[in-house]
């Protein structure tokens, strides 16, 4: 059991219940447009670390849409409108209990 005050995000997300729809990613990045953005605020602000910079390229890659908490932060902060974001299929995705 990790200490409550020293949990990594991975530790935390492990406690949250999901039913991932792994075969149908609900987020796709329009790579050509994304590449024009230097700041990439999605990487900083996504509370589930879904986005990560590709090491050698300028575009963003999705790390894991299965971790998505469906909050919509990425859509709000994307300066170039590069994200095609649709809800996971009915009953899929994050399932909060508390």
């Amino acid at each position: 059991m990790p200490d409550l005050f020293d949990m990594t995000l991975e530790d935390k997300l492990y406690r949250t219940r999901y039913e991932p729809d792994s075969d149908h990613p609900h987020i796709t990045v329009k790579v050509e447009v994304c590449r024009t953005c230097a700041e990439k605020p999605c990487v900083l602000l996504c509370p589930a670390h879904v986005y990560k910079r590709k090491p050698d390229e300028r575009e963003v890659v999705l790390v894991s849409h299965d971790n998505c908490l469906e909050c919509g932060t990425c859509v709000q902060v994307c300066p170039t409108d590069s994200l095609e974001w649709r809800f996971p299929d009915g009953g899929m995705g994050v399932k909060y209990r508390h």
Partner: protein
Amino acid sequence: MSTDQDIFDAIVVGAGPAGLSAALRMAQGGLNVVVVERGESAGSKNLGGLLYTTQLEKLLPGFQEKALREGALERAVSRRRIVYLGEQRQMALDFGAEVWATGNHTWTVHRPAFDRWFARQAEDAGANLVEGMVVDGLLYEGEGTARRVVGVRLRGDEEFRSRVVLLADGAHGLVGQAARREMGMGSSHPQHFALGVKEAIAMPAQVIEDRFGLEAGQGAALDFIGEPFKGLIGGAFIYTQRETLNVGFAGRLDSLRKAGVEPGDVLDRFKRHPEVRRLLKGGELLEYGAHLIPEGGIDCVPQLAGNGLLVLGDAAGLVNMSLYKEGTNHAMESGRLAAEAVLAAVAAGDFSRAGLASYETGMAASLAMQDLRKVRELPAVLEGAPGLLGDYPDRISRLLTDWFTITDEPKEALQKRAVKQALGGLSKLRLARDLYRARRLM
């Protein structure tokens, strides 16, 4: 071709407080209503721990006993605390207690449990509830000013048709945003969103009651400002449920971006503050989540009605972002008023914007909009005077600790020094201006 029998009187998108209030009231009025919810069940995409219930009381008089018995409510808030967290000091204002012991229309809840219960009340009144179904868009007919909404398109290209659609699809309401663009129902300003990140932490009831100074069954709501949120427009909270704590941070996205800090790191910094650590220690994390909050206020509220279309709750930005942090109550009021407008439209057989106009007039006079009008300037105040949540409370907490740090000095000299230090480097003009602005926080 749809026959008349296939057409619902109303389709509600989203089974949260706004949508369910509307569905409940319309069903009570005998309408044929369906609520479409994308989550596995109502509330499964929702977070939040504090619920004001004055509007719920209007919808379901005497709901409290039943809701408690059926596990929809957690603790009646008998105690509130506003805490400033400094680097080596803290300062708290703790109020309420016995005066609220018999209820203050303020409850802690688990939103998944409460929303499920509320959905059941709507179903019992005759509303249809379809859970686990995504609405991907709306159906339109007509052109120009005659363009109207006639139903919803479901995932998998099935359709539901209706006389009116109520958009209660929340802060991250993709369907609502697209529909408002389509129908030209914009707001004067783009919405400002805050991001809330929240942990549910398990703790035995007895420990919660001892730690927060509560009688059995009573709850506490704590709001925090100060050093962990330096440079940000935001703060943190702890709400006590029966055997869990809701611990979270909510901050404006633009301020997080400008400061270059991750929301989750701010929550961790808050949890590790000695004052907070004492409250949480020994707890076990059950769940982590995140949700957007529309905090732009009244200037970001869109046109609320169009032909065959009404916008409710968070989808309409009906959140009072002051210390009240009132959203669900406003959502329920908008749901009730929307339902009454639909009932009037059904009676008159007119589902155009004009036929639904009583929603817009009702909302203009609503408690929600009166409160949003009162705090209209708050977003600008917080942007213009960040010291209100940081520098000023820090000065007051310093004054108090200096005042009560016992030395060999005579008290007169000690107090003079404390006051001088607290006011150091502060222009009287700025102080007067900021204090005038501070009233907006309330």
